[in-house]
């Protein structure tokens, strides 16, 4: 919300309270204020019915916020009141907004995702926490709520990074988030953090582009670019340039904070695209004031599987791919059993890694019709041409990084925790949570040991970044991950903005949506760790 309803801001805050009476009080206040505003504009509205005119854009903002609350607030009473209030306003002849599309994800039908209204107690508590902290419950959290254990750890880390004690000032943090998300043209995250950035008192001018921001942040642009697309190129010289820049220099602690934020938001962009996260209801593109069209379905609904059009297709697909899961399980079993029979020679192992690495480069991420509206985000990067694609076409090689020489557990953790206390611990928990998360199910099958599959996915992503585990046979990846899955992984990790619904649907057709989200979490965390390892290695090298 903008400056003009500063006074109502406090009231929005009140809605996050755990105490029902203070929520009711806040709600009451909002009701009154909205009604006052509504009455104030009524005469004008009669004259100029155009919505969006300056006099009532103010009101519109509030209405949109109410709409968001009516859908996303974890508190039953607030949702009810907001819906009621909106209906009342509509009855007064005011046009109220409605959400565009439905549900938090374009890829996942809304009915599959947990409804805010029907969650178990522990998830409810997590939601309430998130809502109290941010005054919103974003779509990312909703999609992640398939995996509440992980969600808790994720939110705690994110909250700590953005809001708790840390070396960087708050507006810097959000600006860095914007920079990172803009690298992947992730308008969803950019919008979210532009709002936050302004709310913590950030300078609007900075949003005009990186060159309007302070020199110090501009310098971060370089490693933002490298980390996002080719982290292996990061050297200690880059670090040195940041740390020794006279009055614009970064301190080590600040740099660690920035690096953690950058990597977190790069990978979160991957997740956002990978799960097709919809814009927030109260952000641009999340709502409309237009009345519903005749067809009753907007494009998103159809794409979403909420319409009836797609059902037929799905059925077909299912029949076709029937044996997929079984086949995969069979292969896993085989690998487990015959592991000892044919012990591949060392060169063979090395070649397998190289092959996988090279191949991963050649997996073509389809140049798709879908062009994400890059609106005004592009201003945040100076060099749009710098992407993953460029170098893979030129056939450059990713140098190999030996995981045993610099691992998160032994080295990365200590460095982060030393310079930015507690964060090492949180990241460690988050990584472990993502890596070890399992329900021992695969699609409809129960009691499956999925560790092999999870490890293959994790290592495949690290392999794309050139990180090699001596103790892993990269032949397994070929056995377990089929081509469409590899394409999905590759796209999501390297150029997430190109992820399409088709890709999302074409891998692992029989699996549940929750399992696909699980895969996304793995991808996200593996990517973050890979980037972080390169960044931390460069910092360590600088320090020694």
């Amino acid at each position, binding site marked *: 919300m903008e400056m003009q309803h500063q006074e109502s801001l406090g009231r929005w805050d009140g809605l*996050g*309270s*755990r*105490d029902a009476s203070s929520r009711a009080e806040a709600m009451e206040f909002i009701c009154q204020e909205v009604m006052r505003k509504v009455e104030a504009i009524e005469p004008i509205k009669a004259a100029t019915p155009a919505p969006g005119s300056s006099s009532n854009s103010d009101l519109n903002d509030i209405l949109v916020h109410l709409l968001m609350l009516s859908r996303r607030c974890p508190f039953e009473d607030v949702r009810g009141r907001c819906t009621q209030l909106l209906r009342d306003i509509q009855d007064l002849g005011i046009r109220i907004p409605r959400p565009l599309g439905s549900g938090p994800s374009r890829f996942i039908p809304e009915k599959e995702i947990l409804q805010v209204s029907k969650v178990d107690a522990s998830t409810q*508590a997590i939601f*309430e*926490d998130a809502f*109290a*902290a941010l005054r919103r419950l974003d779509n990312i959290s909703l999609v992640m709520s398939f995996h509440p254990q992980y969600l808790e750890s994720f939110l705690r880390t994110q909250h700590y990074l953005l809001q*708790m*004690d840390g070396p960087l000032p708050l507006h810097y943090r959000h600006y860095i988030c914007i920079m990172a998300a803009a690298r992947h043209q992730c308008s969803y995250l950019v919008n979210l953090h532009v709002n936050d950035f302004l709310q913590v008192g950030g300078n609007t001018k900075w949003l005009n582009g990186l060159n309007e921001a302070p020199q110090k942040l501009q310098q971060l642009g370089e490693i933002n670019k490298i980390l996002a697309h080719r982290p292996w190129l990061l050297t200690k010289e880059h670090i040195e340039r940041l740390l020794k820049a006279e009055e614009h220099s970064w301190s080590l602690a600040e740099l660690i904070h920035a690096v953690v934020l950058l990597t977190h938001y790069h990978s979160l962009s991957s997740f956002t695209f990978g799960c097709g996260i919809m814009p927030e209801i109260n952000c641009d593109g999340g709502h409309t004031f237009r009345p519903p069209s005749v067809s009753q379905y907007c494009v998103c609904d159809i794409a979403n599987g909420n319409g009836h059009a797609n059902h037929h297709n799905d059925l077909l697909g299912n029949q076709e791919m029937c044996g997929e899961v079984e086949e995969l399980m069979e292969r896993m079993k085989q690998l487990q059993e015959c*592991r*000892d029979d044919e*012990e591949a020679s*060392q*060169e063979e*192992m*090395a070649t397998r890694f190289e092959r996988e690495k090279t191949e991963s480069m050649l997996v073509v991420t389809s140049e798709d019709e879908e062009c994400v509206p890059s609106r005004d985000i592009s201003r945040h990067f100076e060099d749009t041409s710098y992407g993953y694609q460029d170098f893979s076409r030129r056939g450059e090689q990713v140098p190999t990084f*030996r995981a*045993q*020489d610099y691992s998160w*557990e*032994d*080295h990365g*953790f*200590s*460095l982060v925790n*030393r310079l930015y206390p507690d964060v090492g611990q949180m990241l*460690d928990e988050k990584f472990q949570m993502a890596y070890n998360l399992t329900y021992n199910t695969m699609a409809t099958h129960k009691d499956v040991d999925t560790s092999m599959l999870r490890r293959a996915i994790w290592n495949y992503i690290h392999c794309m970044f050139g990180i090699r*585990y*001596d*103790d892993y046979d990269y032949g397994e990846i070929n056995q377990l991950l089929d081509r469409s899955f590899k394409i999905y992984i590759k796209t999501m990790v390297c150029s997430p903005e190109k992820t399409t619904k088709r890709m999302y649907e074409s891998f692992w057709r029989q699996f549940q949506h929750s399992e696909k989200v699980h895969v996304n979490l793995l991808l996200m965390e593996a990517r973050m760790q890979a980037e972080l390892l390169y960044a931390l290695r460069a910092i*360590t090298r600088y*320090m*020694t």
Partner: protein
Amino acid sequence: MEKMSRVTTALGSSSITGRTMFCHLDAPANAISVCRDAAQVVVAGRNIFKIYALEEEQFVEKLNLRVGRKPSLNFSCADVMWHQMEENLLATAATNGAVVTWNLGKPSRNKQDQLFTEHKRTVNKVCFHPTEAYMLLSGSQDGFMKCFDLRKKESVSTFSGQSESVRDVQFSMKDYFTFAASFENGNVQLWDIRRPDRYERMFTAHTGPVFCCDWHPDDRGWLATGGRDKMVKVWDMTTNRAKEIYCVQTIASVARVKWRPEKKFHLATCSMMVDHNIYVWDIRRPFIPFATFEEHKDVTTGIVWRHQHDPHYLLSGSKDSTLYQHMFKDATRPVDKANPEGLCFGLMGDLAFAVNESLVSSDGGRKPYPGGDRRYPFFSFKKPNPTEQFAHVSSALSVFETDLDSSRMDWFVKTAQLYLLSGKPFTELCDHNATVARELKRPQVSTTWTMLRIMFSDPALGPNHSLSKLGGLPLMNSFSMKEMGPESRLERCKGESRQDNIHLEPGNSHISNNNEENEETEGSDGPTEYMFGDAELDDDDLYPLEHDNQTVAEEPVYTLPPEAFQLRHEIIDNPSVPEHLQQDKADSPHVSGNEAEVACLTPIESFSLISISQPLYSPHLHANFFCPIVREMLSHYAERGDVQMAVSVLIVLGEKIRKEIDDLTQEHWYMSYIDLLQRFELWNVSNEVIKLSTCSAITCLNQTSTTLHINCSNCKRPMSNKGWICDRCRQCASACAVCHHVVKGLFVWCQGCSHGGHLEHIMNWLKNNSHCPAGCGHLCEYT
């Protein structure tokens, strides 16, 4: 068996000679190990696997075990161990999960003997049984430990760590069947080699991974562990529950730990990240390393004592591709460099002083401390063994109390509370503050405020009006700027030179010596200073100053506090100037009235003379004209230790003076003043100062650490939520014990029973009751 080996090694140790030396390896080392007779060392890493002979003057490469054209991952070693009984037998742990044994007795170039590929993940550690020739143990990332009989092709038993990665395995030196294993989740397990089904004992040793463990070579029950949490812990395993008996906090995660031979309490550690040094600790003195080896340029990855009965040689390998032999006599001893004295001022000007007892007692003829000084014997270790180098740990603590009672700092507190810094017109603020100062019997401060008002307020108000309040001061209006300017400067110069003189005095070198001398310094100090002041006045031949001195002389007692306070303060300001410290410290216990008086007042008083004279001289001067003088005045106050004055004036004058003083200085003053206020627990004042300051570094102070962590009053567990309801017990956590409603806003509670409630309710309750309103029977005390 035991005896035998001891005899041979004793012979062997006599033959060990050498010096601190190193050689370059071709690649970073991951681990090193020595053979039993201490003549050779093996170095293993990702790209290196070589044996070096330890000769008198140098390392000589003996053998390269990486043979064959194709580099195999089996050569990529995470760990290596040389058998302590069989000279020809080595084992390595490979990063790809292979365990390889090597037989140096083989005639062919390839010495590889056996290859076990049973582990699925990286093997972190291999360990030979100390007395069995054929028994080898391995611990791997895949969570299994395997015991191999080298006469067989595969492992004889497998121990499962429940899918937690194993970081280290070590056979016990004394118990034939026991080995310890450390895990990534912070646990340490003890196993019996005959019982692979279940561990004998398990305990949590660290938070985060335990990277290493080492059994004490002599003491049966001691196990040292080191972890990512930067701790080294020594456990007594003889009792039923493993008991932590020593703990050393290092500065980085601990990668290796090795007991020092023949020294019961010594162990060596090296780190995995950031810190490249090798430390040898005396575990009884965990705060400072006993010895440090600082040769390596990158992290040390392997350390080993050259001979199991010789404590003087340490070998180490590092990521910087060097192999070192360190002679113990060449080690750096941090203790020698550490400052043996500790010094701290109390809030009321008391001084605590801790020093190594030997330094104090060596000074036999020391006179007793004068005045109200007391000595507290505080901390003393009995030497357990006079031959040990490190045992000499005892220190004495002395506390010097100021000879006047502690209420002397009252003026500071009162001033802080009574001063008005904002909220009224400038002239009123000045007047108010002047009154406050006058009532506290601080005439010079009071005068300064008045001066400031005159200088910076609207000239239309007329200087006469303001001057009339100043009593005798108008007398001095006969002085011109020209006369006074140089004089005040001169005076400051002298003040400085006085300090310099003292710096030059002998006695700084030895503390006890210095103490003794202090009294003399003291004695001569005051008069000298007085003379400076005096001489100055005479030189200038200014009769009004004499008058001034007289007025001042009426109240020497009240102006004492500035001195005591100021001394303390200067120490905070200039921690980097030790001589200065010593001088100040020497002063403080014996501040006698007059000298402090003069030291403090003379310059200030004359200073105010300058300023007062000015408006009369040319009443229409622009206020900016005074800025340089005010700036000097502020610096002067700050230097004299009255940072309170400096900051208060800075705030009250605001924009008028701010640009004149550079930001760093301002920030420095603010920080000092805020620090003082907080020590006096004047939280409100300190917060007001923070709020009123214009330095960005200061204003952000009250933005940080605003989080308050609370526990639920019902279930006693931390409240992770915002709001009033504990998410565990579903109760309102902060209910008022009197009215039983949730407290929103000010909550006060007893620190004894942790019951409490609304501030008002509790206050009312306590008027009539002394027990806790919750009925818990506690006699509540609220502070």
